[in-house]
């Protein structure tokens, strides 16, 4: 009579004498020993074994050592599958409890936490690998006590799964790497390789020139590019935008407080002394000004909140808030917006990156204003036409200045090229880059009658 440990060690024996093994009732062990293609499959296999047929649910908690999150996946006999992320503190508490317990059986009062998804009595087993800690929990879903037979069967059966688990975890680690890679690729198409400790994990292109940026202890990003200039531009831009986002967040919180104070005090004055006309009138004005200030803060923070993900946004808000941002640069120049072809309310909504759209639009408007000011155009005007084109939205900025001189038109988007006395000459080249990442187009030229136009077309879905 082979013990289960012998069977586990003598894997070759099992496979070559399959028929014997199956007839002898070791079908369950065989099944578990075979590599599962997913954690969901493995959990279902555990539930489908004969000795564990009275158990209703199976859950696997996975923690990649050194990270602050853990993954949890669970299945039940109804075929439901769930996956969730938790903070590692929940996992650690549970792991300690399981490791300390002698017989690894628990009831709900001991093990209740938001990480365990089910009611009833549980059996748990922990697996410790070099890079991960795992916890397998199965539950009965009723409150019947767990028998010694249950415990023994569970221990025997789970002897067969570590190899399968190792491979599955290895797979999800590769997926983790791919996720990190893809997130950064979306931000910067020039990033072409992800390497860990000097070894390349994923590469898509041969490198021509490169720079390395360290993300965390294990991962670094290799920036590959065709020219030195574009590396510098993108890094500078990325740094500036990240910094801006952080600054705005801090500013928002710091300014919110005194503005709120002004709000409260003005409201108090208004409700206490509304028979006095001057106090009543002015406290109302103060209230309005405080409200407007708070709104501006909220809107700007929203505009620079999501850097890399596509979000649903209302193009009207993006345009109007950005125009407010341009005020200091475009002081005396009237800006008129006209909206064309928007037949339904939903036409105004697109799934894209509002931060990038705002940056592009801001740059173009400020350029137009600066061209008008420098050329001392009489009665300068900036006209902004936004059109709905079903699959995309176009934003055209027209000015009534001298237009773009044909001599410089070919150099317009060259980095560091500028006709201005100040500025970096990077604005339009960054615009071009961002438009590309949005999957859109940037057209420009001189209007038939007067002035220049810049037209950005953005797809409705990024």
């Amino acid at each position, binding site marked *: 009579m082979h013990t289960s440990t012998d069977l586990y060690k003598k894997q070759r024996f099992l496979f070559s004498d399959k028929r014997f093994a199956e007839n002898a009732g070791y079908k369950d062990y065989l099944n578990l020993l075979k590599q599962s293609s997913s954690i969901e499959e493995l959990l279902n296999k555990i539930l489908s074994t004969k000795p564990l047929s009275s158990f209703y649910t199976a859950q696997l908690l996975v923690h990649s050592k050194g990270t602050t999150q853990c993954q949890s996946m669970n299945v039940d006999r109804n075929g439901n599958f769930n996956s969730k992320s938790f903070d590692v503190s929940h996992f650690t508490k549970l792991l300690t409890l399981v490791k300390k317990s002698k017989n690894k059986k628990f009831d709900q009062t001991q093990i209740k936490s938001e990480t365990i998804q089910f009611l009833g009595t549980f059996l748990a087993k922990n697996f410790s690998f070099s890079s991960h800690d795992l916890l397998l929990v199965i539950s009965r879903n009723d409150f019947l006590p767990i028998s010694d037979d249950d415990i023994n069967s569970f221990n025997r059966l789970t002897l067969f799964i570590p190899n399968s688990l190792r491979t599955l975890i290895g797979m999800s680690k590769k997926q983790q790497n791919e996720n990190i890679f893809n997130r950064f690729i979306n931000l910067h198409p020039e990033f072409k390789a992800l390497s860990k400790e000097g070894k390349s994990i994923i590469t898509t292109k041969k490198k021509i020139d490169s720079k390395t940026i360290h993300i965390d202890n294990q991962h670094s990003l290799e920036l590959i590019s065709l020219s030195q200039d574009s590396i510098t531009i993108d890094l500078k831009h990325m740094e500036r935008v990240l910094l801006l986002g952080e600054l705005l967040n801090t500013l928002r*919180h710091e300014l*919110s*407080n*005194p*503005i*709120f*104070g*002004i*709000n*409260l*005090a003005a*409201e*108090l004055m208004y409700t206490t002394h509304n028979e006095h006309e001057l106090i009543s009138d002015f406290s109302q004005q103060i209230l309005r000004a405080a409200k407007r200030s*708070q709104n501006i803060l909220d809107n700007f923070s929203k505009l620079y909140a999501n850097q890399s993900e596509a979000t649903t946004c209302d193009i009207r808000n993006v345009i109007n808030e950005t125009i407010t941002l341009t005020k200091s640069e475009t002081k005396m120049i009237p800006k008129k917006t006209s909206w064309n072809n928007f037949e339904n309310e939903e036409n105004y909504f697109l799934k894209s990156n509002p931060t990038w759209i705002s940056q592009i639009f801001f740059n173009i408007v400020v350029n137009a204003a600066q061209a008008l000011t420098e050329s001392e155009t009489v009665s300068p005007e900036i006209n902004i036409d936004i059109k709905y084109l079903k699959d995309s939205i176009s934003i055209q900025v027209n000015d009534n200045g001298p237009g773009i001189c044909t001599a410089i038109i070919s150099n317009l988007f060259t980095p560091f090229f500028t006709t201005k006395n100040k500025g970096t000459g990077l604005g339009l080249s960054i615009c071009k880059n961002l438009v590309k990442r949005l999957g859109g187009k940037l057209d420009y030229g001189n209007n038939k009658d007067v002035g220049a136009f810049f037209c950005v077309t953005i797809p409705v879905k990024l």
Partner: protein
Amino acid sequence: MTKILVVEDEPLIQKTLTLLLQRKGSQTKSSSSGTEAIKMIAEEDFDCIVCDLMLKDITGFDVIEEAKKKMTSDEIKNKFIIITAYSSAQVQEKAASYGCQVIPKPFHDINKVINQIMEFTK
């Protein structure tokens, strides 16, 4: 008479909250520093402590930790109300670990908040 302590370093917010709570018939004292508040809590008994998180010297959570030396965890739950502009998930979780309510700033309706605080002290 209900005794309330308002710990808030933004002067206008502190003054308005204190005044409105006093108008509701409470005896409300105030402080703009966390360390001063800790002293006041040690020396007197308050029915309710409305405490901002980001104070100039220490945080509202530090004040709670010090208050634990004098109060039971039930008392902490029943006496402290946290007000803050920074109501992230981490803040919510930490407040929940003390069992305390969090009212985010700015308040949309000051009267509602005042009533909420007065109800809390009952």
